[in-house]
């Protein structure tokens, strides 16, 4: 018996409602691929993706499957496997709205929500075309500079996510989740109304009994539900569990070049029923 809400991957996917603002973790911080496939099967529409700070195959798949209306990100790429083809096609043909950002701005907007302040200042950005295309960003004179009053600084709005889903290696018996040093997952969780996690395993211990483990833990305080999902990040990698699947990533990169071959790839992917077979 566990002392937390244990649900299924399908149930997590149902929590992702049409048009919601969905938090997307980077490729290095636990990509919830098993849930992503269920979201695609549900034919969820109008998703607004908020990437911290970028996405790879997860974002590209959701876009290719027609689930996305908007994306706020610092990059979409398949890394060593090349550009993200469905993302490229969607932007070049105005199928989705893009809010181009930069990594520290995506962090700062969530940090503002963590502190429940309306905005956060950030260095840089001035003079870029990112700034010119962001109506929600603003610039002020530094109010703390008494010497001169014309030092400019950008301010960014607080952003609260509707829902965050990520994959992690372990949860404990009380629903605390091991995130290691991927502290950006804590930032995402703190700034999200709902948080669901898939894990490789649930272990019969409490991470708070050990100070070292506690420091690498996201407390159950921030978690609304956990599901077991073996290899739940595949074909992405998971630190200390498994490497990225190079063959599958290459296969995806090739298939995603055209919508028709992407559709065929997705039909095969779904038919394989990969995550439930393990």
């Amino acid at each position, binding site marked *: 018996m566990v002392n937390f809400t244990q649900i299924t991957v399908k149930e997590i996917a149902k929590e992702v409602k049409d048009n919601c603002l969905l938090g997307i973790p980077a490729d290095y*911080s636990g990509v919830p691929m098993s849930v992503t496939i269920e979201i695609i099967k549900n034919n969820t529409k109008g998703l607004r993706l908020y990437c911290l700070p970028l996405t790879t195959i997860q974002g590209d798949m959701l876009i290719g499957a027609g689930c996305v209306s908007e994306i706020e990100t610092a990059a979409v790429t398949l890394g*060593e496997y090349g550009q993200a083809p469905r993302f490229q096609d969607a932007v070049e043909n105005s199928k989705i709205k893009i809010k*181009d950002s930069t990594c520290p701005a995506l962090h700062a907007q969530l940090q503002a929500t963590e502190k429940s302040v309306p905005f956060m200042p950030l260095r*840089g950005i001035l003079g*870029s*075309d*990112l700034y010119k295309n962001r109506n929600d960003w603003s610039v002020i004179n530094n109010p703390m500079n008494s010497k001169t009053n014309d030092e*400019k600084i950008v301010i960014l709005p607080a952003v609260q996510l509707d829902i965050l889903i990520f994959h992690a290696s372990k949860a404990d018996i009380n629903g605390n989740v091991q995130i290691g040093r*991927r502290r950006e997952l804590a930032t995402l969780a703190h700034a999200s109304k709902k948080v669901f996690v898939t894990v490789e395993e649930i272990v019969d211990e409490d991470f708070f009994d050990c100070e070292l483990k506690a420091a690498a833990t996201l407390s159950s305080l921030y978690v609304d539900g956990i599901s077991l999902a073996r290899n739940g990040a595949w074909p992405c990698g998971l630190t200390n569990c498994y490497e990225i699947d190079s063959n599958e990533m290459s296969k995806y990169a090739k298939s995603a070049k055209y919508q028709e071959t992407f559709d065929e790839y997705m039909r095969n992917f779904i038919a394989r029923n990969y995550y439930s077979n393990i």
Partner: protein
Amino acid sequence: MSEIFQSEIIISEISNLLRNDRHVAIGAASPIPGSAALLAEEERKNSDSKLKVTILHSQKFNNFTDGSRELFDASAQGRIDTFFLGGVQIDGEANINLVGTGHYPKLNKRFSGSFGSALMYFVVPKIILFREEHSPRTLVKKVDFISAPGISPPNVYRPGGPKYLITNKALFSFNAKDKNFKIEKINPEFTLDEVIKSTGFEFKTNENLKYFTMPSQKRIDILRNLIAPKVLNFYPQFAKKLWFN
């Protein structure tokens, strides 16, 4: 001496640019700068001026424990001496474009995005621009989209900025006051005239224009025996193609 690859010559040249640094950070998709930084670290490991290298895409060589924002916080604090940025396009005033070509947002060709460039370019003292392809389509008169500007007016906080640009054909320095690049070194496989023809912007020429320095056999041995296996861990596709095919 066995054949030396072009990529190894560029790695060696970049490594020379890190001579006085204390901490170099390597971002996304940067196998050549990453190899150069690890080479510099290895060569200085027994000296008094050690180099610290942070490679974000590695578990072992990532020194940060506070999530991916720590790179940007540490950079803003001045704790990183050198960082590398690339670009779909780079122009003569060192503006960089990582977003795409054509008229934004309906671009002709969309690329990945600006990553952390819009902060890093302002706060890291020595930014080295690295773009292997040296052609009129990558080095342009004016970029189609500014991910981060090369220079800023005095009322913008800017302790950092571009210092060098290195390509497969040449090494340039950047002068923020004069707002232009100057060619310092040239790949001996090309003539200055060929470099001028393949560059979309005008640049100055150092009176003492030098050739890329060929790495010594000792350096090549270090690179192939000690650095290549490390790179294989976090840039496997790159390392396999260059060293383990």
